């Protein structure tokens, strides 16, 4: 059991799809925060605790990283649970088959909170 994260902690979510980011505004889209049907995403939405580059390395092809503030996630009624550092999961987001209104609303709020980090600078980060 890992201790809870501080509210001022930052977590990173890998952009597995190019189309999860608006190419015109560089804004992360709600599509990036939709839980897949079981058995995928059974524990929540995957995030990385360490760094943008650590997060990007979790995928063979990564189209950037979204950073999220843990305290602001908690304000939405969500939390981040560490399972295997640096991997963790955002918990509390339902699948759209369970509660589509809340699933879409949370995806929308998470997208608004997320700050997009382009893939190019990630190569130079630790």
């Amino acid at each position, binding site marked *: 059991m890992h201790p809870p994260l501080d509210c001022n902690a930052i977590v990173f979510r890998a952009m*597995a799809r190019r189309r999860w980011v*608006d190419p015109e505004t560089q804004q992360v*889209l709600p599509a990036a925060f939709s839980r897949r049907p079981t058995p995928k995403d059974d524990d929540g939405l995957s995030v990385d605790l360490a760094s943008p580059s650590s997060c990007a390395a979790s995928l063979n*092809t990564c189209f950037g990283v979204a950073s999220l503030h843990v305290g602001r996630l908690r304000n939405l009624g969500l939390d981040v649970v560490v399972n295997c550092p640096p991997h963790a999961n955002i918990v509390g987001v339902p699948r759209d088959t369970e509660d589509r*209104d809340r699933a879409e609303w949370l995806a929308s709020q998470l997208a608004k909170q997320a700050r997009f980090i382009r893939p190019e600078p990630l190569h130079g980060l630790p």
Partner: protein
Amino acid sequence: MSLTMENQIVPEFTELEWRLAFSRARTPKSQAPSVRTADDRATPDTIAPERLRLASAGIKYLSAIIQQLVELRKEAESDEYGTLRASQHAFDIACHLVTDAAIISACDGRQIPRGCTSTDSQGGVRIEWVRPTASVHLVIPASSNRDGYIYHEVADRHGTEPASPDRLASRLGAVS
């Protein structure tokens, strides 16, 4: 010389409305099959020429969205996240809904706004119109087993409803 309202015998349509209506009339409406008749995983070769013409017609912003949907239909079958290519069902329904919503919006003197398309992990289609004060998500599952829906959000109010062209056109009216 423009006609006054008194002289008009029939309603006057803009070129955009004619083009949209003509395109729609030539494109058969997708019927959700009760039995799956085609393998969505097969290499796609069933993009109707009318849809390709619509994608390249330069109709703001409908053509750009249809072009994105065509690209999603031509994507590789899958990636690390799941199915990448849009299913035939999701592609057909999404094209139909967006085209009809554009026609309805044009009749009200509006264009549909710029949107972003993507697929979910099963080949369903999402089209998202995200703005600071209003958002609309059109969600079409990969198969006809589940119905598509519209999520709409304006300021602190939000909700979901079954997808239809009328509802989509109405909700997009709040997205500038």
